[in-house]
């Protein structure tokens, strides 16, 4: 406990608290503290879910980034909502399974391109994402299908302690990720690959299957986030995932994970996600236009990445 300020996630949380205080004091004399917290936890959850997947991929070392997250979210959301078509009961489970299976499929395609065609991950996931996007456009045809009422209620509800259900769900998944990364063999292997792929291979780490599992996990998280986001916002939209590409990378880096790989940090993801949401809502409460908001979001992210990542090996 003595050295808590040395933990990589510490500064992300400090920044999140500072941003919370600043935004709160701006919003109508400090009345809407709880509302602000609920909003930050809700929207932060989506960033956390995509960020956890992206963090695993980034941890595998330089060049590993999944650029297909937005397209995967859109595809999973579109197809699962189309399948459920607003019906409840068993269809909800079918819809959720569809979204997760699309994630599995996308992950396998991404990995196959990277492994079999030896395409750099960035190019592979980028070009494949255009195929996923086309698939989503083609299946959607501009229709907006409403999610089942039960799911809409769940994703917007606050059943326990007034904390959004989504935040509880994201918290549970975060704990699972923490255990996997810090206590399980799989997590150790990801870090080993990120620190030195050659040494990892010589030490007997099955690099191919770990890489495959990582890309599949990332895509499954994207699929799940797309599913939840569509239920939360009343339907799938073609550009619904757009902001989550930069967001997933930003929360990973702000949270204290090394952008050069080999070192991941689960608690920091939450600090980064809350900070990013609060910063954007602070800019909103100044009443700034869309242009200034976009511009400052980009500048803030680059500034944080530049300060946080210091001089580390880049390849």
């Amino acid at each position: 406990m003595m050295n808590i300020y040395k933990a990589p996630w510490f500064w992300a949380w400090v920044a999140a608290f500072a941003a919370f205080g600043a935004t709160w004091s701006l919003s109508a004399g400090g009345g809407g503290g709880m509302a602000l917290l609920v909003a930050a936890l809700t929207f932060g959850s989506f960033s956390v879910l995509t960020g956890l997947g992206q963090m695993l991929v980034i941890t595998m070392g330089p060049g590993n980034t999944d650029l297909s997250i937005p397209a995967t979210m859109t595809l999973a959301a579109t197809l699962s909502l189309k399948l459920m078509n607003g019906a409840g009961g068993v269809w909800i489970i079918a819809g959720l399974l569809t979204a997760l299976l699309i994630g599995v499929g996308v992950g396998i395609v991404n990995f196959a391109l990277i492994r079999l065609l030896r395409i750099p991950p960035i190019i592979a996931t980028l070009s494949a994402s255009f195929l996923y996007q086309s698939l989503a456009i083609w299946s959607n045809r501009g229709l907006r299908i409403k999610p089942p009422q039960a799911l809409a209620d769940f994703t917007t509800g606050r059943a326990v302690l007034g904390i959004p259900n989504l935040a509880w769900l994201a918290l549970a998944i975060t704990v699972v990720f923490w255990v996997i990364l810090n206590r399980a063999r799989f997590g150790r292997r990801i870090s080993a690959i990120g620190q030195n792929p050659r040494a990892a291979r010589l030490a007997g780490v099955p690099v191919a299957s770990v890489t495959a599992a990582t890309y599949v996990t990332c895509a499954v998280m994207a699929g799940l986030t797309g599913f939840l986001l569509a239920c939360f916002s009343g339907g799938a939209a073609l550009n619904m995932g757009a902001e989550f590409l930069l967001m997933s990378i930003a929360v990973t880096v702000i949270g204290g994970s090394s952008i050069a790989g080999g070192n991941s940090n689960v608690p920091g993801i939450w600090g980064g996600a809350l900070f990013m949401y609060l910063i954007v809502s602070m800019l909103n409460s100044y009443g700034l236009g869309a242009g200034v908001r976009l511009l400052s979001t980009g500048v803030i992210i680059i500034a944080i990445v530049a300060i946080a990542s210091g001089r580390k090996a880049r390849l």
Partner: protein
Amino acid sequence: MIRLALPVISLVVLICAVFWLQPRAMSYVGLNLLFNLAVPIALATVAQMVIIMVGDIDLSMGAFVSLIACITAAILPGNPALGAVMLLGCIAAYAALGALIEARQLPAIVVTLGMSFVWGGAAVLILPSPGGTAPGWLTAVMKAKPPLVPMAIIASIIIAAVAHLVVMRSAFGVRLRALGGNARAVSRAGRSTIALRAWAYALAGVFAVAAGMALVGLTTSGDANIALRYTLLSIAGVILGGGEFTGGRVSPIGAVIGALTLTLAGSFLSFLRLSPDWQIGAQGAILILVLAARLVVRQAEKRA
């Protein structure tokens, strides 16, 4: 030269396929229509190629070209001095990005992804809704009708020649390629890698500014989203043209040919009456196919 064989063959095959589907394209007007939009794409592709040459990748190319288009359409006609200063400022900003990336050893993908928000925001501020006009001289250049050969083809040849001279034949270009090939050797040889990466980004910025201006010359108006697909197109063009992601191995002439091929592929797909839903997906698929073909060729070479 072998590096150029595959891009040239794919362009020729595609041209034949288009002529076979649409014989009327085999004319001065037809060729001009087919390749007109290739000019800005070729410029953006050369810009992306310079970035890839130094070992980075630019995910903000589309947003940046859109911003340049907005400046060109909204400010340049009414206030040429201010417009010129802003365009030069954009090139300087690109150079600063290169210096930042090298000095702090940041991954270019994160920085350029962040910059795509900055360029997008700036473009919305300058031109909130689609509009503006192209400066008269720019339209005159882009829509000129030289005898015998259409303007689009002449422009492509000029772009390829200039890029080839700067990147492959000048001492400056050799130093930039060395940065992508072996940055450590460059710094041991007493060159500042920060300055070199800044120069590389500045060079890319010059080509990207030209791309935005050429685009406005053709469309005669600007829009903050006008060129967003250029990010994928430019990366695809570089790969199609035989460029590789590591080691500073690129081909400027190949990049221009790659851009022409991509533009033609778009027309080809619409001649085939492919649903517009699949246009973006088709470009992704072409990219994957080319990379797969290259792998097959390379493995066949190894076996031989």
